[in-house]
């Protein structure tokens, strides 16, 4: 897939809670093909400690409005600076990068999309695409507490939403892998979130022989397969998360 570099205009910067915000970016030209699971690399100007680009999943794409959404958690100086960016400002992006979640063979597939924390980001785009293709996805979203549940209204637009919180303040209490929806049978699981969560999901999927894809978040320098910094061990040796991933079938991973 062809990659691009270009300036996007921030059309909105919406604070979701203390540590998460949503950037809406618009492009001056028609968008190229962008697939769920793909990511962008954003250049951070004027932050001395942010030397390399910062990597973010594509949270949602609106082709008509030439718009993409980026859901961001503030963790360090780079994301902190982005959180202060204002509508009208420009951001330089390399996009769209990486492979994509594989789409189901059948419209009758029963699909579960499990996200934790800011890892829900690519699942919204995936869910919206599935919905477009006639498959209503089931979202299972985990968070520490009510405040950690973000974009729930958006997820509701595209599928069924199940929730766990560690403190039980919303949805079922506990971890995503403990949610009662898992008693249903699923044809495929897609997951993105903290590594321990994805590993637990992968173990669950393996146990019940469910095909499972996860999206990894390795540290990247180039994002385009040139530096070989972002590797993960797979059945076929070290593979670059930025080009062979970020989406991997858990069968491929050496976890």
């Amino acid at each position, binding site marked *: 897939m*062809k*990659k*691009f*570099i270009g300036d996007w205009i921030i059309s909105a910067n919406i604070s979701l809670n203390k540590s998460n915000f949503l950037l809406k970016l618009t492009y001056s030209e028609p968008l190229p093909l962008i697939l769920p699971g793909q990511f962008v690399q954003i*250049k951070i100007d004027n932050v*001395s*400690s*942010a*030397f*390399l*680009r910062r990597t973010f999943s594509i949270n949602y794409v609106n082709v008509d409005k030439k718009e993409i959404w980026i859901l961001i958690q503030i963790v360090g100086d780079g994301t902190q600076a982005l959180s202060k960016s204002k509508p009208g400002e420009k951001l330089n992006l*390399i996009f769209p990068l990486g492979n994509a979640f594989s789409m189901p063979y059948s419209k009758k597939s029963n699909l579960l999309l499990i996200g934790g924390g800011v890892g829900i980001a690519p699942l919204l785009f995936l869910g919206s695409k599935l919905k477009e293709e006639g498959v209503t996805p089931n979202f299972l979203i985990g968070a520490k507490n009510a405040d950690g549940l973000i974009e729930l209204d958006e997820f509701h637009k595209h599928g069924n939403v199940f929730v766990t919180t560690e403190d039980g303040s919303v949805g079922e209490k506990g971890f995503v892998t403990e949610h009662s929806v898992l008693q249903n049978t699923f044809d495929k699981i897609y997951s993105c979130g903290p590594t321990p969560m994805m590993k637990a999901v992968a173990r669950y999927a393996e146990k019940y022989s469910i095909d499972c894809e996860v999206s990894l978040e*390795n*540290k*990247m*320098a*180039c*994002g*385009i*397969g*040139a*530096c*070989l*910094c*972002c*590797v*993960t*061990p797979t059945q076929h*040796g*070290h593979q670059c998360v930025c080009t062979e991933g970020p989406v991997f079938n858990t069968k491929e991973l050496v976890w």
Partner: protein
Amino acid sequence: MVNLTTKIGGLLLQNPVITASGTFGYGEEYVDFIDINQLGAICVKGTTLHHREGNLYPRMAETPAGMLNAVGLQNKGVDYFINSINPRLKAFQTTFIVNVSGSALDDYIETAEKINAVDNIPAIELNISCPNVKQGGMAFGVDKDAAAEVVKEVRKVYHKTLIVKLSPNVTDIKIIAKAVENEGADAVSLINTLLGMAIDAEMQTPVLSTITGGLSGPCVKPIALRMVWEVAHTVNIPVIGMGGISNARDAVEFFLAGATAIQIGTANFIDPTVSLNVLQGIQDYLERHHYTSISEIIGALKIS
């Protein structure tokens, strides 16, 4: 129109902007962003005799104005390069230089010999300076006798342009440069990465799987510039300068210090179009200062 061609030993480059090994893949990774045919040359990823898996993840740490890497020469080996990658490279109109890496003398010799037989590859860059592999190339690059020996032996089997890439992790880089010149190197390139380390204070662990790694980016530029200046005043063969070059002004500094060509590494990660921007900027600089050829500024630093 200024003359940008530059000569590295017997090799004529259309311009002096080369992309650095390990930072530009095989060039193909960048074709969506720039016309790589316009580059002076592309140094491909470090190539070893045998397939190497490289080091464990994590391999990267961001540092002030730079980064540490510990890739560890991951590559599929020279035969795979020759049979499966190189045929594709023939479609491009730029010069490809193979960065030959190794961990033993025989590896270097055998790899160089194999590349010598490859028609479309007019030069190798002998990497005796990779800090990221155990018993790795760097051991050759930090000892003048070892450096001399590997160049001597490779020179016997490699008959095209032989560039030797020097390590900055030495007390006196001039001595190493002189030693490899004496054994018949056609050019030297410098600097490879500086040995560094990053620690995660909260986790209380090293950031890299290998504990230490190679430092590159703008942070190393003052050191690189100094070494290029020292080496250019020591050897009579061309010097290819690199280390932190991110814009045309940086590149001009290296030419003034004595570099015949320059390489751009880490900066490609931040801006995949940087190499051609630097090329354009060099041209603008030369025109603005009314030069007709890049050669006029090479080593032209005015010392009072």
